[in-house]
C-alpha cells in the first residue's frame, strides 16, 4: 500500500452515519478526517427526530444520559386522521423507558455532540468544506477533492446523505427515480415544559411520538408526525415526491394544512416557531440499498447507501445510519490491518451489513414501499375507522347494533369491500 496518504480514512458527511464511523475508526487508532460542508455539524441536517438508539449502546456506553437527547419515547400514538374526525391507537408502556428504546433528538444538538466525540477519539473534524469529487487512480478511489485542494487516503467513506453526490460520482447510483424519494417538511415549535407535560400527559424525560396517516397529507402518499422534545415539539409531514408532483401540491402548503388541522392545532397552540426546514428522505430504501455499496477504496453508509426504512408508521434512518457505520468501520479496520483496501476486501461490508440488524430489517420491510403505495392507506381507512366508532358511540335513539354489525355496516358504506380489507390487512401484516 502506498504511503503518500494524508489520512488512513476520509469520511465525508458529519451526520449520524459519518460521525459514528469516524468515531469507531479513530478509536481503533486510525488517522481519520471527518469532512462536513456545513459550518457546523448538524447545521444542514434534519430528521423527524425519533432515534431508535439501542444500536449506539456499543458505541457510547451511556448514550442516553450523556448525549443531548430530548425525551425517551414511552407513548406511541398511531392516528388516523380525517377532515373532521380521528381515531387514535394510543400505546403507552413504561417498559419503553428503561432501557431507552427510542429517544427524540434535535440534529442541531446531536450532530455537534457526535462530532465532538469523534474529536475526542482522535479524528480531525473539518467543517466548512464541501467535497466536490473523488480522486481516482484507475478504478480505485484514492481521495477527495474540494476546491483546489486534494486529500488522499486508503479508504474513503461516503456518508453524505440522501442526495449522495459521491455515490453518483462513483457510478453507484443513477439519478434516483422520484418514487424512491420523499420530501419532509418540519417545524420545531417551542412550548414550555409544563405545557408539554400537561398536553401530552408525560412526566420527567418521557415523551410521545405521533404517527399520523390520512387527511394530514391531503391525499398525498406519506404521513405526518409529531414528536415531543424537552421544550418543543417537532411536527411535520413526509410526502412521496412522485405523488406530490402528480397532485400538483406544494409541500409547504401540505405542511401548513397539517399544522392547522383541528386535531393537531390544539397540540401546538401558543407555541413559538423555532425552526422550519425541508429535506429529502428515502421512500424505498430496500431498492436503493440493493445496489453496490462499495467500490475499490470506497464505502457508502447511511442515507448515501439508501439505508432508510419508511414503514409508513415510522421512518428509521438514523439507527440504520449508525448500524451501517459500525459494519463499515469493522470492514475498513480489517482492510487497513491487512493493507488490502481493494473492492473485494471492502466487499465484506455487504456481509457485515447482512449479518447485522440493518440487513435483517431491510429484508423484513422489503415489501413496505409497495404496500404504502396503496391509496386506501391515505383516505378510506381513516374514514372507515371513524365510521365504525361513530356507529358505536352515536346514540341517535336508533336501536344499537352489535359491534361486528356496526363495523360491517361501516365497511359496506365505505366502498372498500370486505375482500379488499382482508387483502390489505394481510399485506400490511407481511410488509410491516
Amino acid at each position, binding site marked *: 500500500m502506498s504511503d503518500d496518504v*494524508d489520512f488512513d480514512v476520509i469520511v465525508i458527511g458529519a451526520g449520524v452515519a459519518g460521525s459514528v464511523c469516524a468515531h469507531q475508526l479513530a478509536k481503533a487508532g486510525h488517522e481519520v478526517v471527518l*469532512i462536513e460542508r456545513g*459550518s*457546523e455539524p448538524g447545521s444542514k441536517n434534519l430528521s423527524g427526530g425519533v432515534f431508535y438508539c439501542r444500536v449506539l449502546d456499543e458505541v457510547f456506553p451511556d448514550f442516553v444520559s450523556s448525549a443531548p437527547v430530548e425525551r425517551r419515547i414511552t407513548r406511541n400514538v398511531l392516528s388516523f386522521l380525517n377532515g373532521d374526525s380521528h381515531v387514535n391507537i394510543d400505546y403507552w408502556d413504561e417498559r419503553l423507558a428503561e432501557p431507552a428504546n427510542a429517544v427524540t433528538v434535535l440534529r442541531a444538538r446531536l450532530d455537534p455532540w457526535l462530532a465532538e466525540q469523534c474529536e475526542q477519539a482522535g479524528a*480531525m473534524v*473539518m467543517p*466548512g*468544506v464541501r467535497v466536490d469529487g473523488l480522486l481516482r487512480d484507475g478504478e480505485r478511489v484514492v481521495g477527495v477533492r*474540494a*476546491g*483546489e*485542494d*486534494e*486529500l488522499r487516503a486508503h479508504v474513503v467513506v461516503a456518508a453524505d446523505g440522501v442526495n449522495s453526490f459521491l455515490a453518483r460520482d462513483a457510478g453507484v447510483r443513477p439519478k434516483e427515480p422520484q418514487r424512491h424519494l420523499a420530501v419532509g417538511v418540519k417545524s420545531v415549535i417551542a412550548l414550555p415544559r409544563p405545557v408539554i407535560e400537561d398536553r401530552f400527559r408525560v412526566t420527567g424525560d418521557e415523551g410521545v411520538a405521533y404517527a399520523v396517516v390520512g387527511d394530514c397529507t391531503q391525499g398525498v402518499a406519506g404521513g405526518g408526525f409529531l414528536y415531543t422534545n424537552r421544550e418543543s415539539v417537532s411536527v411535520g409531514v413526509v410526502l412521496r415526491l412522485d405523488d406530490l408532483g402528480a397532485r400538483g401540491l406544494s409541500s409547504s402548503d401540505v405542511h401548513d394544512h397539517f399544522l392547522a388541522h383541528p386535531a393537531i392545532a390544539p397540540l401546538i397552540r401558543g407555541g413559538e416557531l*423555532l425552526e422550519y426546514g425541508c429535506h429529502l428522505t428515502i421512500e424505498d430504501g430496500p431498492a436503493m440499498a440493493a445496489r453496490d455499496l462499495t467500490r475499490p477504496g470506497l464505502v457508502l453508509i447511511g442515507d448515501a447507501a439508501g439505508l432508510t426504512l419508511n414503514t409508513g408508521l415510522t421512518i428509521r434512518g438514523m439507527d440504520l445510519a449508525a448500524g451501517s457505520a459500525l459494519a463499515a468501520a469493522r470492514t475498513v479496520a480489517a482492510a487497513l490491518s491487512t493493507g488490502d483496501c481493494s473492492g473485494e476486501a471492502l466487499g465484506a461490508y455487504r456481509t457485515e451489513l447482512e449479518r447485522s440488524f440493518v440487513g435483517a430489517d431491510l429484508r423484513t420491510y422489503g415489501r413496505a414501499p409497495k404496500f404504502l403505495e396503496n391509496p386506501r392507506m391515505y383516505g378510506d381507512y381513516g374514514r372507515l375507522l371513524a365510521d365504525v366508532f361513530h356507529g358505536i358511540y352515536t346514540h341517535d335513539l336508533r336501536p344499537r347494533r352489535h359491534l361486528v354489525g356496526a363495523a360491517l355496516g361501516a365497511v359496506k358504506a365505505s366502498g372498500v369491500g370486505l375482500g379488499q380489507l382482508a387483502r390489505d390487512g394481510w399485506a400490511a401484516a407481511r410488509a410491516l
Partner: protein
Amino acid sequence: MRAVVVYKWSRNAADALVRADGSIDWRNAKMSPGEDDPAALAAALRLIRGGDDELVGLTIGDGDASWALARGVASTWSVEDLPALADNGSTAAVLAAAVRRIGGVDVVVIGDSRQEPGVAAAVAGRLAWSVVLGAQTVEAVDGRLHVTRRVADVRQTVVVPTPAVIGIAAESDLDRAPGMKELLAARKRPVNRIGLADLGVTAGDVQTLGCRRPETAPARVFAGDPAQSAAQFVSALRAEGVL
C-alpha cells in the same frame, strides 16, 4: 516585526432575539468571529513579510483557534476562563496582559468593532501605546506603521511609531472559508491556552439591572392593497412635509 491579531469568538449579535420583556434570547445565536475580524486578520497578514516576521493570534474565551490558524496565523493564545464582558475596559485589561505575556510585540491589530467600540482603544490605554482606530490598512515602512483611514471625505495616512495598537474597521464582508490544506496546516500550529491566573489579572464586570424594550414609536406600516397603501403612505409623508 511581531504582530498580534486579536479576534473575538462569540455569539453573533445579529442572531440575538429580543423578547417582549426586553431580555435577550441567544438560543439560536451561532458562534462566529467579530464582524471586523476578517478584515483585521487580512490587514495583519500583510504586515508579515517573511524573515523574522511573525503573526500571533489572541482570543478570549474558548474561541475557535482554528479560525485564525487556518487563515495564516503562526500560533495562537487563548485566555480561556473569561466570559464575554459588558465592560470593554476589563476585556482590554486582560488582552493587554496577554500581549505583555506574549512579549516582544510591535503591533496589535484588532477589529474596531461597532459592538465593542471601546476595546481597541482601552487595550492601547492599558499598554500605554499609540493607537489609531477606524483604520482600513496598515503597512510597515522603515520601522513605522503607515495606517490609512477615511475621515469625512478624505483618505488619510497616519504614520505611527511602534509599539502601537491599530483598530481595523471592515468595509465589507471579507471572510473566506479556508481550504483543506490550510485546515490541515492549522492543526500543526501551536495553541497556547492560558487562564486569568497565569496572567495575574482579575476581570470584574459591571452589574446589570436588567433590560427593557425602548419606548420608540414603531413604524407606521401600511399593508394590503398596493394602491390603497400607496395613497396612505403618500399622505403620511406629505403630512410630515417631506414629499
